[in-house]
């Protein structure tokens, strides 16, 4: 379908999420993170990503205030939006999905 959107499906604990593939620059394995002081707890620090200093956010900690337990499946989604690049630690990055954007429903306003 012409209008299809591709999503990277990733997991935080038992919940699966999608992110627009166009915003995902790469998916990396865990690497040594250099802590940066004076930043919120969910910011784990920075990494050297092919010469670029990239901040890393623990997404579970950011959303749910629960630290990600690191395993072999843990991945860092490198997200780029305009001139901002960040890495998001997730429990796994499992699939690429083609979806019809019209199937995406907005979050119910009563939840917001």
């Amino acid at each position, binding site marked *: 379908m012409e209008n299809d959107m591709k999503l990277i499906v990733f997991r935080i604990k038992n919940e699966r999420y999608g992110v627009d593939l166009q915003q995902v620059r790469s998916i990396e394995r865990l690497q040594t993170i250099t802590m*940066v*002081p004076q930043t919120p707890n969910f910011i784990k620090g920075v990494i050297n990503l092919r010469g670029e*200093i990239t*901040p890393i956010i623990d997404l579970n900690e950011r959303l749910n205030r629960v630290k990600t337990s690191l395993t072999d499946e843990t991945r860092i989604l490198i997200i780029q939006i305009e001139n*901002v690049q960040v890495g998001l630690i997730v429990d796994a990055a499992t699939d690429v999905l083609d979806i019809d954007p019209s199937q995406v429903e907005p979050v119910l306003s009563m939840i917001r």
Partner: protein
Amino acid sequence: MIGQKDVVLKSLGEYLGDVEFLSGATILGDGSVALIVDPNSLIN
């Protein structure tokens, strides 16, 4: 002091912006990141 080195100062990027006490960061020869401290902000 354990040594002296000329390094390239890199910014911490758009997301982090200016972090207190730091001038930026650099990438060392072994690929690891070293944060550069700004002594001025530490003592003022």
